[in-house]
């Protein structure tokens, strides 16, 4: 029996989760900041982490946004075999976003057109939505992320030659961190996509950010590579706020994919310390 995901269901889930995401840091992220504070030795880095931990508490208790940049809304619906969605499954999402941003008193941060009309849309729409097929039968998972502009600006896509290999990927991630981390509000969660094609690799990197910090990569080689990248990033000493210290990142998440024989596509999607994301199981509802 096929499951049908209705547009009202998607919109209601988005409407409900946005205020929660804006004001309450996911528990895995908050726990990672607390651990980073306990381990940090640099006085400026400690001061930044202490502010971030205190900030998360204030935001939660006073029900105010963690960060003034309450972001663009990214909605990705993962569906497996046996789950049906209509082409207009996201038709009600923008109305849900507009209502949530107004009611929860969040910032409206979108302009009508990047080139032609940089007038604020006034309601934080449109949301950026996609449907993503997955292999597991009956899956209907809704990912929602509020993504800040500063960290997205610090992101990049690079088409490396295959000969660059693992070392080339590490080098490029580190170059991105050295040049941009201080602008992206570290300690960072770094999403890394490797493979697919020019357009798809950025999606891999963004999707990688969805995996919680306390959930290891399913593949042991990927998990080991994530550990290697995290150690290399934290060896830079850039630290919390970019002001020096051990905790430049609290996590690196890697997603890999097949690619062309000529290619080694790499995307780095920087996530700030306010890593606001949630995954909602629509099949359960």
């Amino acid at each position, binding site marked *: 029996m096929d499951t049908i995901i209705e547009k009202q269901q998607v919109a209601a889930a988005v409407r409900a989760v946005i205020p929660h995401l804006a004001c309450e840091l996911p528990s895995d992220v908050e726990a990672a900041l607390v651990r980073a504070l306990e381990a940090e030795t*640099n*006085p*400026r880095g*400690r*001061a*930044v982490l*202490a*502010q*971030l931990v*205190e*900030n*998360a508490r*204030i*935001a939660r208790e*006073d*029900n*105010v*946004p*963690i*960060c*003034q*940049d*309450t972001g663009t809304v990214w909605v990705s619906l993962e569906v497996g075999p046996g789950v049906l969605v209509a082409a207009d499954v996201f038709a009600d999402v923008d109305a849900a976003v507009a209502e949530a941003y107004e009611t929860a*008193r*969040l*910032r*409206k*941060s979108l302009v009508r057109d990047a080139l032609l009309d*940089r007038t*604020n849309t*006034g309601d934080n729409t449109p949301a950026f939505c996609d449907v993503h097929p997955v292999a597991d039968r009956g899956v209907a998972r809704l990912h929602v992320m509020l993504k800040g*502009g*500063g960290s997205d*600006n610090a992101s990049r896509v690079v088409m490396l030659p295959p000969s660059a290999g693992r070392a080339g990927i590490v080098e490029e991630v580190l170059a991105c961190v050295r040049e941009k981390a*201080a*602008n992206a*509000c570290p300690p960072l969660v770094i999403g890394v996509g490797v493979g697919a094609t020019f357009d798809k690799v950025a999606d891999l990197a963004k999707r990688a950010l969805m995996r919680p910090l306390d959930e290891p990569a399913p593949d042991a080689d990927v998990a080991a590579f994530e550990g290697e990248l995290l150690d290399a990033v934290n060896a830079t000493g850039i630290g919390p*706020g*970019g*002001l*020096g210290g051990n905790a430049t990142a609290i996590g690196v998440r890697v997603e890999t994919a097949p690619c062309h024989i000529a290619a080694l596509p790499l995307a780095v999607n920087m996530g*700030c*310390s*306010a890593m606001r994301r949630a995954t909602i199981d629509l099949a359960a509802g």
Partner: protein
Amino acid sequence: MPDAKPLALPLSRDVAKTLQAGDFCLLTGSMYTLRDAGHARLLADMDACGGLPYGLSGQTIFYAGPTPAAAGRPFGAVGPTTSSRMDFATPRLLDAGIAATVGKGYRSAAVHEACVRTGSVYFVACGGAAALLAKAVASSKVIAYDDLGTEALRRIDVVDFPVFVGIDVAGRDVYALDS
């Protein structure tokens, strides 16, 4: 927390000279929020009137776009945005009389030179600590560019607003310090 230096805003040029990159300071007084679109407007206004409008001479610009009022405070959250996007305008603004800027992240060589030339200071606030920073804001008033929404020019009064000295009047940079 490191020892904090209390500083009054607007920042006097004499006090500015005593600051060193990396110093932890608590700002009390008035500053003005302004970011991307507002900077383009301000430069256009300066082209028209020849100097700094809106009583900005000697004042501090805070690169920020706040969320609406919440929890009984003028803003629910307000924190620094990336300063480098304002680098195109900053040397001209410092030459015209802006005494200090507040933001996050690296600045261009031209901004470093302008800080030295004019005796101005760049402060760095903690990105992402916007609920905490909003508690240091006592009041807010839109001064200009209201149609820009969050990007309007606002005068805000702050009490013990925590910052680090990012670039001092000698051109030293907190991001280039060893530890």
